[in-house]
């Protein structure tokens, strides 16, 4: 077991052994995940309130979203999550080239996600669906939704998926740094798999947020007011 206090051992001086250190890092990371859950949770609260009250208008406004593109993105993140978990596994086994390969594929998935997102956003903006003074007045684009409530919908759409996108980009940057460290055989990643695991936890969290965002924005069920026709 690596002794503590030693300059190039992976065990930091405040820890007794590697197990205590890794255990503490995992607890710390989960504690951080809890804060991220509460962070996104606030947005889900706002979403739920407005959706409950403007069911019909929100359903109509959401028709412009492409569930197919969202679905591809969901599969994309799912696959990238699997690849990330496999990368962590290879890190545990110290299989350097596999780690680099898998992590690169994860970054690739992330890039694909952002590209599809770019197409989605540009189609919305081209149809003047970005809230503000330029918001479209065209009822066919809005599928008959009330203008104001549709603006709220798109406000939350851009806000929530945008914030998620920021997290995806941050994740891609972190994974790229990880790839760089593995490539350069830096001790911090080669001696112990925990740094890879922690960034993996972050990436899985990004996946989980999208797992909730997808059905809520893209797969809205038809509300009774639309079915009933009033």
């Amino acid at each position, binding site marked *: 077991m690596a002794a503590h206090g030693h300059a190039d051992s992976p065990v930091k001086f405040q820890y007794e052994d590697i197990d205590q250190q890794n255990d*503490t890092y995992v607890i710390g990371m989960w504690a951080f995940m809890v*804060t991220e859950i509460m962070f996104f949770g606030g947005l889900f*609260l706002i979403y739920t309130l407005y959706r409950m009250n403007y069911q019909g208008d929100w359903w109509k406004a959401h028709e412009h979203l492409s569930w197919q593109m969202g679905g591809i993105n969901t599969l994309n993140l799912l696959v990238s999550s699997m690849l990330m978990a496999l990368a962590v596994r290879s890190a545990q086994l110290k299989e350097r080239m596999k780690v680099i390969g898998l992590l690169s594929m994860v970054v690739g998935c992330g890039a694909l996600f952002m590209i599809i997102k770019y197409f989605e956003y540009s189609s919305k903006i081209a149809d003047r669906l970005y809230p503000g003074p330029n918001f479209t007045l065209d009822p066919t684009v809005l599928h008959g939704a009330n203008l104001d409530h549709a603006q*709220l919908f798109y406000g939350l759409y851009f*806000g929530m998926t945008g914030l998620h996108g920021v997290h995806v980009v941050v994740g891609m940057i972190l994974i790229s740094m990880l790839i760089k460290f593995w490539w350069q055989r830096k001790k911090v990643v080669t001696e112990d798999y925990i740094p890879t695991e922690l960034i993996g936890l972050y990436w899985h969290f990004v996946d989980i947020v999208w797992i909730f965002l997808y059905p809520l924005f893209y797969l809205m069920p038809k509300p009774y007011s639309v079915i009933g026709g009033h």
Partner: protein
Amino acid sequence: MSTTVKTPISTDDAAHPPKLNYLTNGHSLRSWLLTEDHKRIAILYLISVSFFFMLGGAFAGMIRWELTSPAGNFLESDTYNRVFTAHGAIMVFLFLLVAVPAVLGNFLVPLMIGARDLAFPRINLLSWYLYTAAGTLILISVVSGGVDAGWTFYTPYSSLYSNSNVSLCLVGVFLGGFSSITTGVNFIATVHRMRAPGMTWFRLPLFVWANYATGIIMMLGTPVVAITLLCVIFERTFQLPIFSPELGGDPILFQHMFWFYSHPAVYIMVLPSFGVISEVISAFSRKRVFGYHFVAFSSLAIAFLGFLVWGHHMFVSSQSMYQGVAFSLITFLLAVPSAIKIFNWTATMAKGNIHLNSPMIYAIGFMGLFLIGGLTGLFLAAMGLDVHLTATYFIVAHFHYVMVGGTVMGFMAGLHFWWPKMTGRLFNDNIAKWNAVVVFLGFNLTFFPQFISGWMGMPRRYHYYYFAPEYQIYNILSTMGATVLGVGFVVPVIYLIKSLFTGEKSGDNPWGAHGLEWQTTSPPPTENFYYSPIVTDDVYDYDPVAEHEASRELGARGH
């Protein structure tokens, strides 16, 4: 004393010159600004926090000066709005939320549990940098024109109509929130995994329990206000409508989300001070804290229950009356754990061997002032009464009693109690004792008249009250008190800094207190202990022999 730590070198021993302690281990600016040592980070926090406290105090001075005359001639309405917002934002976000946990908590939690450092030292440093960035942005927003939305930033004014530097200030508050979150994560992980062998949960000093409960609140509550304020920034900067009433959004939702954090936030402010008081009262009564388990669990109870009462800030906001009833009931319930603490501290002091040193005077002052603040909180928890008292000076007086009479007194008590440990020097306790009395008297003169003027109906956040000149006498008393209080806060800066240069060396345990932090040198070495401590005794295990010796030691120093 009680544990098996052997401290080979005491700073009193002239034959063995002291080894490097955390203060002398590296003199360059880089060694301070890139430190990973929790003790140095605590000192960095102390410097920043003191600066912002003085700044917030200066704004308070402007408010009190303005309110001495009913016509309010010193400042215009708009300027006054910016002044009280600055006072509130700086004091809440840059002082109260940070002072005790980030200064005393950072310094002492590893020492008290026998660890060599916190779990994540670099994240700790990041926390300080986030705090400094937050402070800088808020300062810039205040100096470059100010913010006039109140520290509570209610929508739709803050999101749609205000022309002031709201977004800049909110980015600063957002960063400050992340500073808080990282501190909380650090404390939680440290207390879970880095206790020394033998340091079981129920041997932890109550200060550690308090900081653990605070860490829980920081982690669960702060992200909610972070996203709320981010939504306001989205509305102002990116035109994303979220709370906009014209489009069918609900501005009261902002209030719900804001207070969902800001009520637990006041427990972030006060719980660590509770922890300090437990330590101080125990040490200066030479008795174990009465009902240790009750006090420990009451910290956790306050942390959890504190999340269920946010609506008591919103009784008149058009929230449902039924919801108001529920919040009112739970708020009354929440007074119980706080009361448990007060009872237990009083019982600790009973038949104890009381030494009235300055930390103890601050602690006793805390108990009285927090009691008044807490009880007036119960007045406000009653919905019917709150309708009359809300937005008056009664509320202002209530929260200053708990925040200043509570948190700040706790901070002063802790600062004085652990100053010898942090710096290795003793300050002049005689001046400190008298200063504590001055702070107590000044505080009461400042804020007690505000209860009366508030009860009579004086509204808060108004810079004039010419329609009711009968309030003037209370405002003048309040301003007089504020002057005394201001002196009371400036004097410690002088004698504490003076002690750094001319104070006598303190020795490892000048107060004769029990606790792992007193088993190491003053100031401690960078790695906190020379040997890994193994804890075999119970917490607060004051025994008569040691107590007698400590009394002798204190007596010899002339205390």
